[in-house]
């Protein structure tokens, strides 16, 4: 008997089932098909402006910094300012995301390179798939547009988020993912990021910048009626 | 039940009170009688918790049946201990899983069983006591009473009605004192380390009097404080609520306790 068969046999013995029971199968299949929502905290269920404010507050409490700009064309200047204010070199690495490509980087002094990171980039910029106000969490999807390595290897990470993609809760993000990738389908990597990397493994002292980015700066593009 | 009719309350004194500190039993009787109850003390030994917690189901069941028989004629069973009341109110029904008839009996018994102070407030509606104790006290929440029975606000509410009494909360009053019944005997060294930690918070409160609702915890904390040479007075909360504080504190000599120096 293979390990697989034996494990399933043991499991079914313990559960006193054969695996062929119709009602059980129907219940499991229905859960997988319907993906019912459980308890969704109402914290993020807010009108747009307040949702943006909540996201900002939550992300900041996780030690990210957040700026809001009026349109996508203002992102490069904001990125340049942030690099300058933090005494960082004016370099950025980005993926192929058109939203980033279309931004007027040339109007700034920032030297932008393209592609996945090999671990030697100081600064990276990515565009978020979305974000969740409930916990100040960014949602990143893998692929050539926004390589996963850029989320983790550079010391400093700038993430651009369109305010239209800011959800109140995780469940809304799941719906958007299903709309984009199909039911039951996922990008290879889906990264939720809540603040910069940290560790408390040395004497229970929380320190930023363990293995991932030491700094995380979020630029929200709010063309609607946001906080401004 | 008609609230004007006198409630027949069977006092389950608990082994520790029966053997070590009868004055707590009499304090419980006074509180119950003052609240209009008719109190009896049916024949009793132990609720069976030591056997239950040591994995000895047979003895635990036998003792549970013995208690249920002995208290069959009482409207309520009240114990000056969250631990023993928790055993009877929460665990007796578990003991008879697989025997529907006995489990039904155990459930009915559990439903009429209460810890003393919460019985006074939650069932009898007592909001104040006639007692005077012009001292600063701190209160330890014993684990079973707190987490199995939800005893937390009740003793504080009644203590607030005691003349002259000031309650100063210790840090982490809801953290275990390390007693744990047979744990203190089986793992004496670890239990000792936990109670040592507990005394830091007791002393830190600055109160010269420590109260709690379970004699096991009280003997444990009193034992450690006295070993440290601390002059903190340790009593069961019922003694203070019943205005019966003439007996020497737990662990103090039989004659009126001379003030020790800390």
């Amino acid at each position, binding site marked *: 008997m293979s390990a697989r068969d034996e494990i399933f046999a043991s499991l079914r013995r313990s559960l006193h089932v054969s695996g062929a029971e119709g009602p059980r199968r129907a219940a499991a299949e229905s859960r997988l098909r319907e*993906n019912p929502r459980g308890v969704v905290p109402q914290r993020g269920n807010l009108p747009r402006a307040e949702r943006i404010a909540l996201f900002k507050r939550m992300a900041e409490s996780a030690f990210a910094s957040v700026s809001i700009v009026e349109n996508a064309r203002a992102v490069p200047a904001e990125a340049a300012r942030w690099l300058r204010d933090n005494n960082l070199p004016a370099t950025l690495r980005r993926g192929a995301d058109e939203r980033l490509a279309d931004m007027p980087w040339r109007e700034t002094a920032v030297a932008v390179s393209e592609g*996945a990171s090999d671990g030697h980039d100081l600064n990276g910029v990515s565009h978020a798939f979305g974000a969740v106000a409930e916990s100040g969490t960014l949602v990143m999807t893998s692929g050539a547009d926004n390589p996963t390595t850029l989320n983790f290897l550079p010391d400093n990470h700038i993430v651009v988020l369109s305010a239209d993609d800011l959800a109140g809760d995780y469940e809304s993000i799941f719906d958007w993912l299903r709309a984009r990738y199909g039911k039951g389908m996922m990008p290879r990597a889906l990264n939720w990021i809540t603040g910069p990397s940290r560790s408390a493994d040395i004497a229970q002292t929380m320190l930023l910048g363990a293995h991932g980015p030491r700094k995380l700066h979020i630029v929200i593009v709010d063309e609607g009626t946001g906080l401004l | 039940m008609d609230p004007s009719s006198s409630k027949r309350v069977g006092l389950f004194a608990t082994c520790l009170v029966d053997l070590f500190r009868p004055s707590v039993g009499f304090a419980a009787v006074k509180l119950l009688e003052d609240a209009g109850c008719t109190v009896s003390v049916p024949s009793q030994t132990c609720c069976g918790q030591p056997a239950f917690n040591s*994995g000895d189901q047979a003895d635990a069941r036998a003792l549970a049946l013995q208690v249920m028989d002995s208290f069959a004629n009482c409207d309520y069973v009240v114990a000056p201990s969250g631990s023993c009341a928790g055993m009877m109110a929460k665990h007796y029904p578990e003991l008879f899983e697989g025997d529907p008839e006995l489990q039904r009996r155990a459930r009915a018994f559990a439903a009429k069983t209460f810890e003393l102070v919460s019985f006074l407030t939650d069932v009898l509606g007592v909001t104040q006591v006639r007692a005077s104790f012009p001292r600063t006290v701190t209160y330890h929440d014993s684990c079973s009473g707190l987490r199995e029975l939800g005893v937390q606000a009740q003793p504080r509410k009644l203590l607030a009605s005691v003349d002259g009494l000031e309650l100063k909360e210790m840090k982490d009053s809801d953290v275990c004192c390390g007693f744990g019944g047979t744990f203190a005997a089986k793992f004496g060294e670890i239990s000792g380390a936990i109670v040592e930690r507990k005394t830091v918070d007791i002393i830190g409160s600055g109160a010269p009097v420590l109260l709690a609702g379970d004699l096991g915890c009280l003997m444990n904390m009193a034992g450690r404080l006295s070993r440290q040479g601390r002059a903190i007075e340790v009593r069961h909360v019922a003694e203070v609520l019943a205005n019966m504080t003439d007996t020497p504190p737990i662990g103090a*000599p039989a004659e009126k306790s001379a003030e020790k120096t800390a």
Partner: protein
Amino acid sequence: MSVHANPTSPHFKDNAHKALGDPQLQQAMGKLRIGFTAARAASAARLPEFEALRDSARDIKNHTLANLDLYLEAYEKKVVEAGGHVHYARDAAEARKIILDICKEKGAKTVAKGKSMISEEIALNEALDAAGVRPIETDLGEYIIQLRGEIPSHIIGPAVHLTKDQIEAEFRKAHTHLDKDRNLEEPTSLLAEARGVLREKFLSADIGLTGANFLIAETGSSVIVTNEGNGDLSQTLAKTHIVIASLEKIVPTLEDASQLLRVLARSATGQELSVYTTFSTGPRRDGDPDGPQDYHVVLLDNGRTSMIGTEFQEMLRCIRCGACMNHCPVYHAVGGHAYGWVYPGPMGAVLTPSLIGVEKGGLLPNASTFCGRCEAVCPMRIPLPKMMRHWREREFERHLTPSVQRAGLGAWAFFARRPALYRLATRIGMGALGFMGRNKGRFSKLPFASGWTQMRDFPAPEGETFQAQWKRERGGR
């Protein structure tokens, strides 16, 4: 032989004795006791739905366990569809062999590891070492204890038992290629040093191995939760990603995972969410510039399917947040290593006897005051004290309870079951004891209670028992 293969759990009392005398450990535990509990309480208080989420989380796991065969099938199908491989391991040896075979097939020299308790459970590092493959723990805490040759003392903070100075000493010993006179005074400099040393290792590792907090049947995804980002670097940079997980990590849907995620970090560290929550689904896709080329999942049973249907089934709801140990007075006193095997604290006291046998692990479920704080904070509402009691029942039934304890209990029960005899014996006994203790009101030594009197006095009884006095005063009503 290592602790993995040779648990010291039977020597819990000796281990505890050493731990209580270790000032550095005591210093570290003092910090833990305060930090974690305050953080959890604050984060639970911030979320009005927290208690409802705990109920929801419990229900999801109960439903999943009752249908685990079906969700496993669904999960497996989705992993394969995404181009991954699923392996089944009945026990630790089988799991090690599957992983070693993959290493051999890939010609791997090094494995970068994210934190995985299952890897500890199957003692993977020793097996890799023996096969000439270098395991590199990349979680900072795991890295530190790997340098020290220790097992984790906490399931989410493996090195929580160490002080800053001990870690500094370890780094100076291990990182001999660095300047001897470098300043490591500040914790930040230690972190920076570890980051630098490990960064090179991430980039050169052949295989990335991680655990999984959840496996999602709906999508075939494995989920890891970290604060450092080490798990992500391990699994993203290497050519092959191996996930090692026990099979009860399955949840049906993304929505179910988010219910559990909402209680996980809050219970563990008090964070709203850990910094990195990553859902991985299969290997690199067409056009992907990064990510592993191969994706393997090793599903471990190791006795878990046999726990289903027993009084220990509820333990399989555990999501390894560590809240039970963070709130345990016994764990606070002795730390995690005293438990003598991979899983410490209350969850370890329940799980360890299942995994290494009650003969070896039986002391652990006895080492609890039953204060109930673990159950009160467990996000999955696992009745930990009740299950520890079930282990004590099994011990008692199998006559594994120590004979002195059994005899004492037997004598007590003998009297307790005979009320008249009990009253007689206690009247005489307490009378004598009360008389002897009258002057001091306490005993500093008692022949039958040395465990007690070693640390504290034993308060003397008042003398006459309550029942005797009641009978005298009220005629025995």
